[in-house]
């Protein structure tokens, strides 16, 4: 007997989880406080990429990229899929050595990549600054438009009988039940909270140690310049910036979009909940991008915005059952790679809810590890 499921949150993770469980045959209800994709997803870049920050992150990004790839033929156009690949850009010899090691690590695990020297890098991306040492091209990475992904996943869920309730805020939830802000109490065989940063405050019984860290990010998008940029570009020192403890940092990350526009990131701020674009941070972010792409300064910026990444202290998401609270699962804390890891997350949740064999070892993402975060508080 399959459980009736309530998914709280219709961002990319909630949408993927809802689809996976609906396809599995569960009766799925999605409760969304605003509208699908209205949180972090709507502000996100949308890269599908493999990352080697840790073995656990590698496995989840790898599984997810394979799952996305399996949908490329059917969904590619609707997702504005760009098979652009990623180039990790090395500024100097030291970073190029990092690139080489990363390539070797990928190769051991069966993912193709190609080391680019100074000349090859310029040939791959003519707008990059002269003097960059090289880079690592990962041809299998892609870029998609996240709002379209949310829509397709939810449409898939609905085709398998799911219902989506937008504008339906949840007050709190526990094992096997959800209470709406209007007072309605809804029972369910399984409740999965995929509410991003709002997740901790929705838990009727708090999970000791659970803390999500909002990491504010700025993005800017240009007018249309088809062909100006060919790959997603990321500076190799990106992960230093992404996971560092500096209260504010910027790192070079740009993406070519299917429209010909260029999406420019990135910034990370740990000490703010201000939902507005900060000119000073935007300035640093664009200046950083222009160090790598000098002619970027001449491109026209149409729009800038900010979002908040739901991060965890150990840089891994929370995916799995809540200890001591039967019929309650979390799927949150994906920081800046929720789009990249949504399908793998959904596969893990499906296996856990239905008692199937998991597609990969779920231990590194388990919720019980938050007990160890108490020290961080």
């Amino acid at each position, binding site marked *: 007997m399959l459980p009736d499921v309530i998914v709280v949150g219709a961002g990319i993770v909630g949408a993927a989880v809802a689809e996976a469980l609906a396809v599995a045959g569960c009766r799925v209800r999605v409760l969304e406080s*605003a*509208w*699908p*994709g*209205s949180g972090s997803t*709507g502000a996100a870049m949308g890269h599908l990429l493999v990352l080697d920050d840790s073995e656990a992150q590698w496995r989840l990004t790898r599984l997810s990229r394979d799952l996305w790839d399996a949908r490329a033929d059917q969904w590619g156009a609707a997702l504005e899929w760009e098979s652009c690949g990623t180039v990790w850009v090395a*500024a*100097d010899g030291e970073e190029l050595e990092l690139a080489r090691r990363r390539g070797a690590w990928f190769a051991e695990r069966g993912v193709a990549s190609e080391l680019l020297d100074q000349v090859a890098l310029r040939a791959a991306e003519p707008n990059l*600054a002269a*003097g*960059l040492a090289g880079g690592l091209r990962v041809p299998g990475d892609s870029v998609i438009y996240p*709002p*379209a992904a949310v*829509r397709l996943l939810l449409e898939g869920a609905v085709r398998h009988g799911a219902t989506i309730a*937008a*504008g339906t805020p949840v007050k709190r939830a526990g094992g096997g039940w959800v209470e709406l802000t209007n007072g309605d109490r809804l029972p369910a065989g399984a409740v999965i909270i995929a509410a991003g940063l709002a997740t901790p405050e929705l838990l009727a019984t708090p999970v000791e140690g659970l803390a999500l860290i909002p990491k504010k990010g700025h993005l*800017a998008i*240009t*007018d249309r310049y088809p062909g100006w940029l060919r790959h997603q570009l990321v500076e190799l020192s990106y992960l230093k910036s992404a996971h560092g403890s500096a209260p504010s940092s910027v790192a070079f990350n740009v993406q070519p979009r299917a*429209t010909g526009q260029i999406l*420019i990131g990135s910034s990370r701020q740990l000490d703010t909940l201000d939902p507005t*674009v900060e*000119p*000073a941070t*935007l*300035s*640093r972010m*664009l*200046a*950083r*991008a*222009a*160090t790598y792409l000098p002619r*970027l*300064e*001449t*491109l*026209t*910026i*149409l*729009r*800038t*915005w900010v979002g908040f990444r739901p991060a965890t202290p150990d840089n891994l998401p929370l995916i799995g059952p809540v200890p001591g609270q039967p019929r309650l699962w979390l799927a949150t804390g994906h920081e800046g790679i929720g789009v990249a890891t949504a399908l793998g997350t959904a596969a893990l949740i499906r296996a856990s809810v239905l008692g199937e064999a998991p597609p990969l070892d779920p231990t590194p993402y388990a919720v019980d590890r938050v007990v160890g975060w108490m020290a961080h508080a």
Partner: protein
Amino acid sequence: MTELSADVVVVGAGPAGLAAAVAAAEAGAHVILTDEQPAPGGQIWRQPWDAQPPAPSRELWRRAEHRGVRLLPETAVFGVQEARCLRAASPGGAVTIRAGAIVLATGALERMLPFPGWTLPGVFAAGGIQALAKSGLEVAGKRIVVAGSGPLLLAVAAFLKRQGAVVLGIFEQAEAMAVARFAGSLLLHPGKLRQAAALLGELTGIPGHHSAWPVRAEGTGWLERLTVRVGDQEQSFELDFLACSFGLVPVTGLAELLGCRVESGAVVVDRQQRTTVPAVFAAGEATGIGGVDSAVIEGAIAGAAAAGSMDPAPSLDRRRNREQAFARRLALAFRLRPELKALCEADTIVCRCEDVRFGALIRYGDAREARLATRCGMGPCQGRMCGPALNFLRGWPLPRPALPLIPVTARALVTDATDRTASATFFRES
């Protein structure tokens, strides 16, 4: 990096902005006045390059120059750096402008409503064709229909006729009774009545219709034929241009970026034209559509207040109240009728920048969701065209303005000199 500063910075050199700059300067303030156009006067006092500006514009600008007001022409404020510090794009590059006080005189935009064929070349905004004609578009001998709503239609029709155009008709969506009541109320405003009478005199011979609006524009690659509805009848015209406008919408983007409260689409101000943000004032159409007389009065009050004068002169205060009553009657008389919502069909383009059709939007209940899903309003114009239309069609709020208010280069958004220096030395250091 160019940085300027002044006691009072006035954004927009139309009637409200010019009046504000004069009042502030005459109160002893050092004033900077910015405008996107090459010359002061705003849309309403805009002139062909070889013509004299109208007398009131000339007079205000003479007084402004006399008091040392510094005009920054072709300068578009696109962002707020910090409190009372603006960023603007100008021919020489981006500038930072620090202000003791700011007066927002950002004016209004025309509201276009989508109907089948409205994106054909040859269909213009009413104020738009006027501006284009002043900068060189040939209208003499052209067959032109003027349609939509509001007194602007009459002014544009008279202008086009003066330029030698053949104005085939004026089609006003409001009911004859409503317009007649409004015209009657002009008796309370002798100055406006004289203007209106002069205008109507000029329009002699041009058929005018009420309860009438465009339903369909057709042509092969260019506007050739227009069908209008007059009451229950449809009429068709062969024509060259359509000048179309469905009223004016206050421009509030900069006010919102500064954090000022905006209600019902207009910047909220008090008796001294103060917004809800300290040292930020607003005047003219940005605070509600009221016309040129109202703009000049409000500008004078705002400029004096921004320069530190405590209370508006009682005479100005009284005149403003009268003008605001006029503005309310104007809004009531030319309220858009609900039938206009049915003009837009599923395959009618709503967002020209991103080619979004109405049918793609109607499945979404939430404006932000629709915009994100379809990119409606996310192109170069950032919703300035489709925003007011969708506000009427769907009741959707206008897109929330963000930095940059207009498209600018990435360079213009790099504000801190150290950011750029860091960029320049980055690779040498590493």
